[in-house]
């Protein structure tokens, strides 16, 4: 489904070369919920960017949905992002000049859906995140948690196969974070593959698989066989 083999990514600046990813190998199956953890600067975001086709890589293979992305043109990549991938960012990245409706609308416009279809999807997506009533509000009129939920709605509206989230709860308090997690789990249950970078071990444990990244490599993979059991555990710890 998402197959990365021996990916390497080097950032070159005038002074230094940073090997952000080296020999990075990871396979994510359809329907997985993967949490990525690791120390700061270890390459998590880089991995996510490469996975989400936001960034190119230097070496290795990457198959997305069975298709090699190497050598695809910029507009082909944009198309793939638009159709198959949904993004959730740590700092929400809503467009401040657009209201919620128009924000969720952005990827759909690039998808060239017709107006009726877009409207249906936007309303549905905002319904899912519980903000349908605030469609005409501007992002600045919402709390952080609400903003992130709009961002999730925006990611969902295109019904992507993959949802990539870079510390989606990083700017939120625990309660908000949990509600966002609930939402992601629900989406995952409905069949969307989710890959999430997080610093919070408790949240990471709610995923089916955890991978630990160190120095640009996958250093550890753990499977949480039963997610519901884990939920139980966290409850006890909490």
């Amino acid at each position, binding site marked *: 489904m998402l197959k990365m083999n021996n990916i390497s990514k080097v950032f070159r600046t005038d002074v230094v070369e940073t090997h952000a990813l080296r020999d990075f190998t990871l396979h994510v199956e359809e329907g997985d919920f993967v949490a990525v953890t690791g120390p700061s600067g270890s390459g998590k975001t880089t991995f996510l960017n490469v996975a989400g086709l936001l960034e190119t890589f230097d070496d290795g293979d990457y198959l997305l949905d069975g298709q090699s992305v190497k050598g695809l043109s910029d507009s082909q990549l944009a198309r793939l992002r638009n159709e198959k991938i949904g993004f959730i960012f740590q700092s929400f990245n809503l467009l*401040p000049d657009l209201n919620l409706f128009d924000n969720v609308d952005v990827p759909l416009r690039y998808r060239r859906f017709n107006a009726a279809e877009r409207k249906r999807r936007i309303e549905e997506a905002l319904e899912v995140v519980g903000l349908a009533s605030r469609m005409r509000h501007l*992002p*600045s009129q919402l709390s*952080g948690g609400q903003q992130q939920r709009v961002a999730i709605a925006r990611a969902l509206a295109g019904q992507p196969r993959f949802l990539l989230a870079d510390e989606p709860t990083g700017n939120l308090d625990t309660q908000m974070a949990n509600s966002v997690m609930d939402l992601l789990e629900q989406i995952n249950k409905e069949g969307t593959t989710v890959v999430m970078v997080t610093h919070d071990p408790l949240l990471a444990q709610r995923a089916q698989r955890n991978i630990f990244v160190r120095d640009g490599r996958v250093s550890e993979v753990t499977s949480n066989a039963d997610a519901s059991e884990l939920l139980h555990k966290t409850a006890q710890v909490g």
Partner: protein
Amino acid sequence: MFIYYLRLAMLSLRKNILLTSLMITAIGLGIGAAMTTITVNYLMSADPIPHKSDRLFYVQLDNWDPNSPYQEPNEPPDQVTWLEATNLMAAGKAFRQSAMGQSTLIVEPNRPEQKPFVTRVRMAYADFFPMFDVPFLYGSGWTANDDLDRRLVVVLSKATNDEVFGGVNSVGENLVMEGRSYQVVGVLDDWHPRPKFFDLSTGAFNLPEDLYVPYSLKESLELPSTGNNNCWQPVSEDTFQAFLQSECVNSQFWVEFEDPDDQYEYLAFLDNYVAEQKKLGRFPRETNNRLSNVMDWMENQEVVAEDARMMMYMALMFLIVCLLNTVALLLAKFIGRTGEIALRRAVGASRRTLFAQHLIEAGLIGAAGGLLGLILAWLGLKGINGLYGDQINGLTSLDPNMIALAIGLAVISTILAGLYPTWRACSVPPAGQLKTQ
């Protein structure tokens, strides 16, 4: 604190050097264009004799065609006839008065190696010189008796004296013109009133004439008129006398009063005079006498050229575009900085200090633009001078007033332009912006 703001402003201006130079260039061009045209208009409409322009009056009498005015709507002729020129001189009712006209004479220098040359001549009365405060280098004007006696006397301009006498004091020397010998009684210093208000009929910005002789010589020597000559009636006979006695207007008539209010008395005299003339069958139109002081007369004669005014309006609009340009750029710049402003406010900067900081930045742009504008205005005036040549003699110099105006205009307009963007930027709430950016 001011120094700190200045440093911040410089820093911010340097950071975006291209946009900063764009704003400065825009302001500079706008100010440059505006100042160039304003200067030309300002000099065109300048008061050429400020301390007495309200006491000098131009005389108009309406001796024109009964069926149609000299100029619509019912404007009297812009000059007077020889008859009026001599009659009003003879009456001598004003404190000072002089009729005048233009002619040419060919000067035959004494030195054989110098070729004869044509000079432009102003024929006037003795009062001409004190009336217009004409500066003398040597000697003085002639006397009223010289006028009466039709003596062959001449006053030279500085340039003519330089040419014929090598610049030495030539008072008492003789100058031969068209076979007659004139006695030099005075030499003028540099004199170039702008506009050449005493005779606007042949180019308001021409240099004054090369030499001056008594107007009374016109009759005795049959000196031709070279200025404008307009007639509404054919001259009766082909003699010079008939021409002088005709209804053709070709003379200017100026009077000076000790008190501007004396004009009413003089106007009454003129009305009386015209009434007398009507009895002789002249002045078929309704009495329509005018006295205009210097500034009124220049306005009446539209000394400020239409083209110059048109250019000024264009340039002012150009300046507005440049300012709009600057407002828009500053606005974009300051709004792009809301994050930083919110941060500064969060760490305790008051709205007032931020306001000062940003206004200083705008002011700096204005000052730089003003300086550039001055340079451009100077170049622009040179350019205008090149384009128009003699037509606008001496109308293309920047005086201190204009320089002050340029800098003031630049700084004030830029600060005005910076006001709105600054206000917008400073109305950022201290917290809000940190969250959403």
